[in-house]
């Protein structure tokens, strides 16, 4: 399996999109491209699994290296482990769903899908790169599509949100950059290669400087408290597919980076800073949850809840046990799928009712049973109902966190557990208000989901169920990766 296909296919799709003139063609090409991505992701999963079964125990599989700026020690080095494969699958799912729900975009259709595909390109590239430079390259490549998606196709105070998002994310990546440079020079080999750097013992002093830079930098992407404020505004102003991508993929870039780069390369510092990370993530979990409770706009609700949910990712990483890290990755996948579906549904509701204010909606279950049923399911997933992905992820994080016997970690875990009540409160308040109760009269004529929306929702739901009902395949995929990170810790 040649990993560069994962970059090439979105790239070719994007180029092809630029050449097309007709909006209908654009849509189908984008759909075909994203379907191809999904197929490719499955092929990757299969071949990866096959390789593992055959006993290939290398940390990274399918490694490919092309020369690129050799004088800087940069190479186009690609490779995947289970964690990356999981993230790639997530991306593929979200992308195809995102394309499907955007079927009705009429304003600058070509540009819209171009941006979507470009964004997916950035995500794939990020997840498969083993060279810090190209990783950073792909991290930043995704910033502008996000900005334009929000700014051009968004709603509400979109310019403000787009600006805030772009600037804060750039701020995060600026810190990442400095951290990367520090790593680059401290290693003594002047190489950006992740695997080469991993073999070195980076001096603890450098670790103590670079780790916070990297962690906070990536943390901005994944809504680390208090750098999360781009999340609510950004998500709520973005068009549906934009929010899906933002929350489903983009926020995961941060978590992945925290894990793959910060924690993996600098285990000593990770240990030293674990307390702070745990405190911040617990704050994010609870504070995000409580703040969500007070929101009235559906997108804000989901955005704030994302802060809370991404807190679990960081908590898992901060806890530094194999189970917790596995849980963090699971939570990334789960949250990605779930929040993408949530945003897709919010989009569907908004498209019909033209409002996102919870209090203006009531009894919609009567008029659009499909959409609202999914809203229920995704809400339940969000509050961690067994059988859906959220449960698996959260429980793994909890169990992993509990493996620390000290009172501090225990307290943190207990506090984090408490959030599931708050989650239940805000999810149910919103969902029941929208779905149940007497039907608002003005919504008498609403139609249920169209084929594209149904397909998008079902694709995501299938993924959520696949994780929620049979989690072991995913855990077996992910945990060797977590194992390696933990081995470095010793």
């Amino acid at each position, binding site marked *: 399996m040649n990993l560069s296909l994962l970059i090439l296919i979105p790239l070719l799709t994007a180029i092809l999109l630029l050449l097309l003139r007709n909006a209908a063609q654009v849509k189908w090409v984008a759909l075909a491209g994203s379907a191809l991505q999904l197929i490719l992701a499955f092929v990757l999963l299969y071949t990866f699994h096959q390789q593992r079964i055959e006993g290939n125990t290398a940390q990274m599989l399918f490694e490919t290296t092309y020369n690129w700026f050799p004088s800087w020690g940069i190479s186009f080095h690609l490779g995947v482990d289970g964690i990356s494969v999981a993230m790639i699958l997530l991306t593929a799912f979200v992308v195809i769903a995102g394309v499907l729900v955007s079927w009705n975009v009429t304003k600058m259709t070509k540009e819209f899908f171009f941006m979507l595909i470009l964004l997916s390109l950035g995500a794939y590239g990020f997840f498969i790169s083993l060279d810090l430079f190209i990783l950073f390259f792909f991290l930043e490549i995704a910033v502008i599509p996000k900005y334009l998606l929000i700014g051009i196709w968004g709603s509400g105070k979109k310019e403000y949100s787009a600006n*805030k998002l772009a*600037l*804060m994310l750039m701020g995060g990546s600026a810190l990442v950059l400095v951290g990367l440079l520090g790593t680059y020079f401290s290693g003594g080999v002047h190489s950006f290669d992740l695997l080469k750097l991993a073999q070195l013992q980076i001096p603890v002093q450098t670790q103590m400087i670079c780790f916070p830079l990297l962690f906070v930098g990536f943390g901005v992407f994944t809504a680390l408290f*208090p750098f*999360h*404020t781009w999340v*609510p*505004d950004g998500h709520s102003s973005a068009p549906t597919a934009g929010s899906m991508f933002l929350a489903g993929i983009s926020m995961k870039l941060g978590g992945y980076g925290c894990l793959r780069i910060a924690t993996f390369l600098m285990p000593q510092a990770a240990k030293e800073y674990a307390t702070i990370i745990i405190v911040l993530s617990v704050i994010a979990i609870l*504070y995000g949850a*409580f*703040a969500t*409770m*007070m*929101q009235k706009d559906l997108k804000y609700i989901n955005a*704030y809840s994302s802060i809370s949910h991404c807190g679990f990712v960081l908590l898992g990483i901060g806890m530094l046990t*194999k*189970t917790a890290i596995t849980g963090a990755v699971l939570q990334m996948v789960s949250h990605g799928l779930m929040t993408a579906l949530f945003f897709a549904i919010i989009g569907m509701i908004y498209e019909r009712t033209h409002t996102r204010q919870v209090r203006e909606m009531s*009894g919609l*279950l*009567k008029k659009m*049973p499909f959409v609202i049923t999914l809203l229920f399911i995704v809400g*339940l997933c969000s*509050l*961690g*109902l*067994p*059988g859906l992905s959220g*449960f*698996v992820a959260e*429980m*793994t994080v*909890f*169990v*992993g966190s*509990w*493996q620390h*016997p000290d*009172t501090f970690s*225990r307290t943190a*875990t*207990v506090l984090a*557990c*408490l959030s*599931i*009540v708050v989650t*239940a*409160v805000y999810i*149910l*308040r919103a969902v*029941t208000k929208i*779905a*149940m*109760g*007497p*039907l608002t009269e003005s919504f008498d004529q609403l139609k249920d989901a169209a084929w594209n929306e149904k397909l998008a929702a079902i694709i995501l739901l299938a993924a959520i169920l696949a994780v929620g009902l*049979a*989690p*072991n395949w995913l*855990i*077996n995929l992910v945990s060797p990766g977590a194992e390696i990170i933990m081995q470095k810790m010793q």
Partner: protein
Amino acid sequence: MPNTTLILLIILLPLAGFVMLGIYGRKFFRNTSGVIATSLLLLSTALAFYTAYGYFFKYGKTGGVYQKLVPLKYTWLQFSPGLSIDMGIIIDPISVMMLVVVTFVSLMVHVFSLGYMKGDERFPTYYAFLGLFTFSMLGLVVSSNIFQIYFFWELVGVSSFLLIGYHYDKPSAVAACKKAFIVTRFADVGFLIGILVLSYSSGTLDFNTLIATLTSPQTNEYKNAIAASFLGISALTWGLVLVFIGAAGKSAMFPLHIWLPDAMEGPTPVSALIHAATMVVAGVFLVARLFPVFAIVVPSALNLVAYVGAFSALFAAVIACTQTDIKRVLAYSTMSQIGYMMFALGVSKYGGENGLGYTASMFHLFTHAMFKALLFLGAGAVIHFVHSNEMKDMGGLRKLMPITHLTFLIGCLAIAGVPPFAGFFSKEEILLAAYQHNQSIYWIALIISALTAFYMFRLYFQIFWNKEHHPHGEHHGEGGLSMMMPLVLLAIGAAVAGFIPFGHFVSSDGTRLDTGFHLQFSIAPVALCLAGIFIAMRLYKKQNAMPQKLAASLKGFYKAAYHKFYIDEVYHFITKKIIFNLIGRPAAWFDKYIVDGLVNATGNGTEDFSATIKKFQSGKVQSYAIYFLAGAIGLALLFIYIWK
């Protein structure tokens, strides 16, 4: 040996019904869905009985002791070596008993609903939800892994939520389902943390291993669990108490009971199934499941169980005396009866004769399922008939609904503990157990049994006697066969279930326990119970002014009881005023004005700063030159004199 496939079928058939009806019901099975679901469940029930027969009479016993069999164990989610969520089946007396109870009551409800819910718009959805619930409940009772039980625990919670909120366009139903979910969810956090504590203490999540490890004093895990302490209480105690919080939430123990009365917003058959016979006893079941650990290792936690149970039972009984909504009366009575079961467990010890409370509790669980389901379904029939839940709209129905009347009366007698109905036997054992181990609880229990008789017959008389009923509008009889048949079947159950030698099958350590009938001991409770019935008859058989007078004379107390001792208001205050206003609002405010404000302030500050320094770009070329020279000189000074 148990047939794994058959047991799996018991559990999975309702699930199949859910999936099929949930996805295709609205399209293809609009009218047939009830029949489909009922027949699936009938099959399931039959299999459950078959399994029970097999277990109790054929293969269950080895050396006179009922074994815990684990015919199926599938690792569903592996956390770390030794720590995994297994989806498995455990077959032991209580799980088999629960299989029977759940499938049977569920079947009755399914059948009853065929008539009760006829013509409802979302008929298929209703049966789908029932299927989901039954599946979850069955999954719960056979759980072999503590996390598996949590898994189904949550599913049970959500299906309960769905069923309570079945009439989703009614705001009160929406509020009730939300409340039920959130309150139990809150308790579940306790359960979850408890699981974490126990799992860490024992290093496993598997019930059998967990119990084995924690009850044998020589293992390291046991020593560590006892030694590790937090706030002066051992980790194990914490774990069990937390698990009990979860159990208390599901089983509506004080103070987590507030959801149960509101849950009566659901369709009445649902109340019968979930909020009387099955789900609410999940808490009792959970404590029973972990009973060896409770009883052997941490008796203090068990004491807590006993007192919470006893208090809840009394508390609910008092409130039940004042309620006017028949379903609410039944709800409080349920709470009271579950309190009974709880404290029965609480006063029990492990093994042999001392384990009487355990057996009694399970026995009461069993009989209670019969008569409470019967009462609820009867109430359902009444409500179906008069289209109201309020007692004041009823009265004199005995002639109009003879079958209902009769079966309801049997139910009332059973719950009141009048011999020889089922309730009498189970209560008798409970009282005996309490008398043996905890006298104070015994006295409370006696009072409760009188109260029970009183409020049940208050209900009975107000519905079926009291004033004459003047039906208005069309009149559609008692409901068809589908509604009457379950009533009759359950009534038979309520009448005769007491004669089952329960101790032979279910006991704390699996050995045979002979429970005798002690005449002298029964006198007091039966007398109290008859007194209660008598008072109720005096007050409510004929319409008169005495109840009002009585209520007036009790004034404050009556009012407080009528308002359920203002527990709801306290909760309301805590959630709305404290959590929302003191945590949620400040958090949102902090986010908007401080965190976000700081970000915006950075931006604005930069812009403002930029506006202030713009005057340096004055357009005056001479100023530029001065800055130029000043810059050069400044740098020169810096590097010559300061930064060498």
